[in-house]
């Protein structure tokens, strides 16, 4: 189990979702991916994507104008 980071700053949806999806393909069960983004739309799109594909958003936090969404990979 490990934690990974994905820089999706300045990307507009659905790009952060696509990048998350592609990154998660490389990760293992239980890994955590922190997606750093600036488009607030990601806050609804990434959790929706995770629900559909069986992964879990375990939390999110805001930092200035950045949003960090943590997804736990489930295989």
């Amino acid at each position, binding site marked *: 189990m490990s934690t990974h980071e994905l820089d999706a700053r*300045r990307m*507009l*949806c*659905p*790009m952060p*979702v*696509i990048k998350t*999806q592609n990154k998660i393909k490389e990760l293992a069960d239980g890994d955590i991916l922190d997606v750093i983004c600036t*488009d*607030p*739309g990601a*806050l*609804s*799109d990434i959790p*929706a*994507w995770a*629900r*559909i*594909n069986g992964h879990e958003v375990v939390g999110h936090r805001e930092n200035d104008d950045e949003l960090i969404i943590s997804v736990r990979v489930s295989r």
Partner: protein
Amino acid sequence: MTKKHKAIALISGGLDSLLAVRVLQEQGIEVEGINFYTGFCVEGHTHAIRNHDKDKQKRNNALWAAEQLGIKLHIVDVIEEYKDVLLNPKHGYGANMNPCLDCKVFMVSKAVEWVKENRKDGFDFIITGEVIGQRPMSQRKETMPIISEESGADDILLRPLCAKNLPATKPELEGWVDREKLYDFSGRNRKPQMALAEKFGFKDYASPAGGCCFLTDKNYSAKLVDLWEGRGSREYEMDDIMLLKVGRHLRPKPEFKLIIARDAGESKYLEGYRKQFVTIQVVSHNGPLTIIDGDITSDDYELAAGIVARYGQGRDAEQVEIEISVPGQEKLTMTTKPLSIDEVLEDWHV
């Protein structure tokens, strides 16, 4: 018990693809969705930019549809490959810059590729929510076989909503799906779809008026054509596509245009482009951030500054102070008189 068959469905997020999937699910077919992101999709991005859109529902319709259906959704970035579809459509454009028929062929062919690449997942066929006669350009009786053939999908492409008006496909001939339980929708009338949606209990579905992407939009298409003319070449990058959706676009000279933010949300978005573009901002008053796309020389700073000043709170002032920043150079300040409303020519507006 026979093998359960599997289909991959093109999901746009609209009602038709939603229904097409549910119709097959009712027949026990296992479905997964695929959604192609061309960069021009109505989905996403602009919603986050403007202030007044903040409260609007920010859902991505393709994701929403997949969730309603309980299916997996694969979103594929086709931005690069799509350029050739848009720039060189064999079948031409629709009412605006929308190359719908080529676009459909392209998307189905990408789905065919997907099926081959994911052979281990065992997809047997492809479905779309197409309806004969629904759209003047791409969804006609004559175009259906063109899409099937040119995409290479041939008889594994099934359109559940109008299958009965078309020759039987492999999934029907092999008995994987019951043709009798498919539909014969045709024409622009949306009532049958709405009735079916009601039957399945779908509510709040998206029904985009024009089509699934910005290329069907007249204003957007005009801006795209203007961009190509301004550059003297029909090329574009992702940033260009995005910027066409943001701000007011004015082209006072053939060599450059101004993109003027319309509110604080857009100003903030344009901030992100400071390193790539010349930017102009009124500093003595509140005013929108403006970026210059194209080649501007210092001879035209005065003109550009006057226009920018027109759109700030100092528009009625005698003089306003303006800051011009060119990437990699020191910022420049100057004072200028805002142009009057008549001096901003109508045909500068793109």
